[in-house]
């Protein structure tokens, strides 16, 4: 089940599998690193060895999540006996070598490389979104660049592509490290970006150099998270949001997703994995937003709708023997994944749950139910969604997302942009006092919170579905369904339904089988399984477009790595464990909204109008 190695064939010999013995003959090599003798494992790259020995090697094209490219040459080191300097990221140690990591030759070469990159790097740092968080800038500082030795380009060579709602491409800042290419092709397997032309004319481009909005980009924003410079960044709506806040006629409502609170601290210098829920609420209120709500509330609503949909699909399939019912049911919370399936597997769209994502559900609830309760004209309400996600910007601009009669969600704001707005407002997030979310959507369950991590939707759905069917809580210790958790690409498990309630008698003895996948490369794998018929007998599939789930989303603080994502996930699970309500259906606000507003219950007529959507068969052909 574990995914196959996807690195290019030419690079596979570089990866030496761990042997059984770490000390036996042939398992280690003795080397000399900066004059210090040591034993290292055969096949480790010089870069890895240096990292273990706390020697900092500068890198640009190297990224933990991606395959080795070796094209930026920043990580050059001197290996005795070699005519030229060697790229340490692509040099596996297989023989006793003597390595110097900071000799005169190395330092000079690295400085020249930075200088050469800067000579074609248009723009100034202070007018760049990545100022102070730019790897090129850091290197220029590390290697003491105080003048442009090889000149500096003063005219832009490219036009900025801001056609996409999510990702802006500014190729003048590109240093051609190809991290975005490897992210798009290898990590996400979407295949939008590639290097075109040759030599000096090389640039990163889309198919036939079309605007990003016209190609098969799924807006996941993973390329943004891995870009070392400001060449890729998200489409920032913060100016318009400030304008709405300052307009006294507008009632500006912000909903915050579970993931930004677990990561926004990183933008303020805190280590990864510290949850900032209360402080973030204070900041948002002080900035002038009229209300701050928790998207977890509509995450709970999503669970109610999606869970009900799953049960009705199961009933149709088992009781009515309806062969047109599509099982397994796929989740639809991740807009990147939705666009991915629309492009690459349009004929399988019926498998997707019709439930909207929590963001869009909140938009339509705010502009209908909330507007009515508070007596505000929905046309004066501006809904902003704080999301860890670049694709949410695209999602809220989908033309069909107007079931409230207005644009359901006006702006999608990423964690990074929120951090920028907080800084603009002169607030220092970690020092703020904690406050709660506003009523009437202040309460959310822990089940909604864990939506942020891969497997979270599945875990939340199981807690509710199992209890709806059997009347008992899920048979897992402390409600923690550990099989859903963790960073494995594709996770599968099952729960047996026994002693069901009368109305769900048809499910008696059914083994509820489910799959959790994150990252669209894994999603592709699951889809291939579906096409081959290997998913017969499965009932529910959770897919998140970004590696690690929403906490690794394209709008989250930069940098990202597996360790950072794990720490953010840990913060979410820790916060969840201490929540009073941990099941979506027990959230008092959910009960309230079904009593007061969505009176025909989950999956009812009004729910279908406001909380469900339809999808577009886009296909992957670009015209």
């Amino acid at each position: 089940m574990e995914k196959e190695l996807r690195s290019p064939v030419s690079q596979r010999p570089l990866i030496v599998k761990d042997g059984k013995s770490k000390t036996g003959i042939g398992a280690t090599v003795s080397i000399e690193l900066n004059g210090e003798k040591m034993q290292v494992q055969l096949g480790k790259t010089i870069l890895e060895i240096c990292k273990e020995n706390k020697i900092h090697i500068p890198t640009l094209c190297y990224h933990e999540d991606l395959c080795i490219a070796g094209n930026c040459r920043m990580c050059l080191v001197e290996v005795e006996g070699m005519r030229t300097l060697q790229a340490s990221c692509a040099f596996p140690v297989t023989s006793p070598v003597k390595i110097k990591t900071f000799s005169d030759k190395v330092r000079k070469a690295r400085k020249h490389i930075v200088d050469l990159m800067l000579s074609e790097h248009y723009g100034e740092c202070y007018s760049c979104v990545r100022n102070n968080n730019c790897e090129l800038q850091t290197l220029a500082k590390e290697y003491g660049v105080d003048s442009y030795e090889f000149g500096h380009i003063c005219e832009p060579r490219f036009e900025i592509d801001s056609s996409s709602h999510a990702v802006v491409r500014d190729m003048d800042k590109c240093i051609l490290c190809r991290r975005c290419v490897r992210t798009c092709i290898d990590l996400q397997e979407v295949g939008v970006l590639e290097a075109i032309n040759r030599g000096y004319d090389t640039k990163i481009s889309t198919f036939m150099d079309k605007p990003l909005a016209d190609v098969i980009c799924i807006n996941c924003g993973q390329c943004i998270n891995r870009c070392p410079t400001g060449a890729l960044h998200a489409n920032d709506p913060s100016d318009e949001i400030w304008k709405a806040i300052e307009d006294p006629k507008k009632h500006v409502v912000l909903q915050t997703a579970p993931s930004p609170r677990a990561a926004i601290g990183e933008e303020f210098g805190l280590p990864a994995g510290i949850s900032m829920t209360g402080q973030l609420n204070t900041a948002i209120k002080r900035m002038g937003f009229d209300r701050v709500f928790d998207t977890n509330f509509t995450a709970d609503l999503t669970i109610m709708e999606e869970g009900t949909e799953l049960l009705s699909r199961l009933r149709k399939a088992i009781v009515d023997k309806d062969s047109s019912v599509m099982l397994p049911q796929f989740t639809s919370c991740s807009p990147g994944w939705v666009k991915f399936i629309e492009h690459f597997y349009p004929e399988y769209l019926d498998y997707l749950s019709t439930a909207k994502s929590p963001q869009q559900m909140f938009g339509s609830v705010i502009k209908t139910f909330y507007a009515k309760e508070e007596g505000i004209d929905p046309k004066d309400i501006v809904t902003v969604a704080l999301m860890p996600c670049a694709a949410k910007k695209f999602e809220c601009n989908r033309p069909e997302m107007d079931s409230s009669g207005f644009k359901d969600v006006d702006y999608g704001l990423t964690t990074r942009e929120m951090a920028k707005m907080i800084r603009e407002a002169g607030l220092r997030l970690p020092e703020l006092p904690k406050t709660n979310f506003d009523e009437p959507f202040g309460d959310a369950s822990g089940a909604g919170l864990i939506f942020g991590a891969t497997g979270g939707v599945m875990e939340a759905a199981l807690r509710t579905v199992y209890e709806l069917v059997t009347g008992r809580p899920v048979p897992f210790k402390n409600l923690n369904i550990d099989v859903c958790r963790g960073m494995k690409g594709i996770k599968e498990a099952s729960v047996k339904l026994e002693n069901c309630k009368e109305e769900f008698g048809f499910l008696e003895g059914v083994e509820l089988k489910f799959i959790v996948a994150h990252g669209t490369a894994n999603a592709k794998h699951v889809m291939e399984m579906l096409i081959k018929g290997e998913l017969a007998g499965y009932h529910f599939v959770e897919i998140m477009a970004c590696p690690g789930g929403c906490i690794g989303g394209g709008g989250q603080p930069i940098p990202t790595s597996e360790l950072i994502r794990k720490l953010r996930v840990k913060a979410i699970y820790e916060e969840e464990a201490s929540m009073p309500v941990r099941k979506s259906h027990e959230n008092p606000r959910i009960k309230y909204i079904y009593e007061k507003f969505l009176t025909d219950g989950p999956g009812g007529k009004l729910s279908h109008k406001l909380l469900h959507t339809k999808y577009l068969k886009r296909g992957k052909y670009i015209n």
Partner: protein
Amino acid sequence: MNDSEKNIRNEFIQTLVQRFGKERTALLPVLQEIQKKFFYIDEHSQQEVARLLNIHPVEVNSVISFYAFLYDKPRGRNTVRVCKNIICNYHGSLEIAKALSTELGIGFNETTKDGKVTLEYANCFGMCDKSPSILVNDQIHERVNKESVLNLIRDLK
């Protein structure tokens, strides 16, 4: 491009893939054959090749843009390439270039209105000992002069 044109290309690409296989290494020969038959590799064909070889269209586009002799824009049925290397230059390639340009009524990197010829410069053909040389489609012509190149052009269809 209408559907019937697309179908012609699809069928042709299908036969090529049967001939060269579905490995990534089949990409270049497939593209060369398409180019030979249709003179350039259009967007639709690029995507069809990508589909059959199970790679991304942008990768096909990247390969085409990398090689100077593969094109993704429409061009003439014949290509005449004049060497712009210094040796050929010394032996009069500039004059030949001028003569070709005047005869065809087009500049370099342009195509005649009837779609017969595209005129281009190319870097060294490795024929410096027999310079000046020009390349007409796949055929190299050595020690050419103004008269001989004009005769060559007239014979083109």
